[in-house]
């Protein structure tokens, strides 16, 4: 469900861009998806393929996904660590005072169009 909503938000942004730049056809869309963004990429691709068939501008488009690595920072020992491997607790000092530096993004990086 969530993935389809995101596809629709992406499509809306591209529609606006197409209108501004008078684009008739989108060849590809490149998205950068964070490792802990909560987006299930397999579902996302399925939703994209379902949605684009009903959307003339996107019907021939290819979806390209790039992963953004998730990194967490520890405020106590000032070190970075891999979020997916260690979670919220710092593996170096055991602190809970940590926050995500990167990894929850969903960014439309670029599109190819004509």
């Amino acid at each position, binding site marked *: *469900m*969530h993935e*389809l*909503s*995101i596809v*629709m*938000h*992406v499509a*809306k*942004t591209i529609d*606006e*861009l197409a209108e501004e*730049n008078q684009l008739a056809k989108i*060849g590809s869309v490149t*998205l950068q998806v964070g490792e802990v963004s*909560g987006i299930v990429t397999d579902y996302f691709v399925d939703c994209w393929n379902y949605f684009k068939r009903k959307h003339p501008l996107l019907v021939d488009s290819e979806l390209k996904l790039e992963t953004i690595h998730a990194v967490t920072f520890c405020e106590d020992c000032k070190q970075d660590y891999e979020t997916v491997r260690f979670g919220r607790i710092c593996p170096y000092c055991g602190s*809970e005072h940590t926050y995500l530096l990167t990894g929850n*993004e*969903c*960014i*439309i*990086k*670029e*599109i*190819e*169009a*004509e």
Partner: protein
Amino acid sequence: MRTIELHKSVTESNDRDAERLRSELLEKGVLLVNLMSAAGSGKTTLLSRIIGDIGQKVRIAVLEADIEASVDAERIEALGARSIQVHTDGMCHMDAGMTETGLREMGLDGIDLVFLENIGNLICPAEYDTGAGLNIMISSLPEGDDKPLKYPLMFQTSQALVLSKIDTASYFHFDMDKFIARVRFLNPTIHIFPVSAKTGEGMEALEDYLLEQTKAWKEKGSHA
């Protein structure tokens, strides 16, 4: 084919719509409260109680968002408050565009306070700005004291938290101090209201807060 670089967050166009809706509502002096919670936390029961208690002091309307069915809107309308049912057709959250359409359909003339009863879900409603002036989440006591650990973003984006169904405390192992400490760790400034819509316990503090916020929003709008 040419390449156009965007580097735009997916939520950016929604954030823009939300900002526009928020300033429009400020100008009108209507406070929109985005009410978020898990399914079954008692959102509609809480709203029914609020409408009964303070519906004479401020004019309240409710935007009911559900994936399908209209049972919630019918419950609210039975109390005499204005309400509209929005069906999201499978979408798991309300965004600013859907909220704006719903509000326009319902009409805001003569209304002071609108509750958007968001889809029962603790994940994506937290990620999408609806254009609300105030975000309130409900966590019911039976859901457990570990909810802040599992759904941190929802606790971080809300300005107030209603802990509902406190009349059931004797049936559950719910550690109130632990719960509050976990919430405060995520959000030090959040207002916490433990209530029971059934017995009325704690409702007055929550309702005073809502009246205060409605008044402050109107004042802010008249100076804007």
